[in-house]
């Protein structure tokens, strides 16, 4: 159930592949999972109708990890899951770079789809991260999430 906060860019598809290889080597689950659902959130070049040049993501070290672990534990209590993986960026982020990866493995698709959405929505509304965007007018804190 890895939770990682990264301060440099990552490739979500490589992360999924690597973690899946690790799972198969260490958890003896080859043939156990029939569904893998993933969500990748990347940085847009616009927000609230204005062009955005770059972004900085701040977090609350310690509480962020603790809360992400709680979200994944809640998901595993709610659904029958084999594994979850959450990676989230902090620091300076460039346009089109991945910000977040949520990946869920389960025996069947319903659990994987539902748990992936649940983890992502809970992360958006409760995990202590804050975005600050740079626009042509200067820096501005993002004060709300866009509707899902």
């Amino acid at each position: 159930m890895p939770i990682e906060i990264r301060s440099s860019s990552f490739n979500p598809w490589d992360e999924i592949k690597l973690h899946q290889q690790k799972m198969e080597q260490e958890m003896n689950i080859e043939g156990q999972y029939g569904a893998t659902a993933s969500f990748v959130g990347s940085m847009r070049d616009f927000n609230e109708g204005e062009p955005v040049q770059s972004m900085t993501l701040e977090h609350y070290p310690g509480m962020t990890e603790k809360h992400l672990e709680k979200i994944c534990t809640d998901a595993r209590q709610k659904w029958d899951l084999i594994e979850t993986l959450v990676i989230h960026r902090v620091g300076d982020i460039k346009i089109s770079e991945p910000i977040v990866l949520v990946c869920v493995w389960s025996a069947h698709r319903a659990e994987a789809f539902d748990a992936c959405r649940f983890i992502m929505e809970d992360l958006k509304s409760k995990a202590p991260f804050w975005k600050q965007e740079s626009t042509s007018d200067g820096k501005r804190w993002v004060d709300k999430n866009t509707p899902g």
Partner: protein
Amino acid sequence: MKITVKYFASLREQMGKAEELLTLSDATPIADVWNNVSGGSSSDSILMAINMEYVKSDTIVKEGDEVAFFPPVTGG
């Protein structure tokens, strides 16, 4: 009793500091700590945590606690 208070994001900038040590005379609801540090500002859009867990405004702060105040979160 002594507590640590942390501020994040836009609230850190408004407060002009990331954290401070406070001495309180007694165990106090976190809402009163907010009133103390903010000079009575509304807490309507402020999230509150003690020892890295979300709490309600009537939760009592105790000796040695790490209290945090921050604006709505915008990750993902």
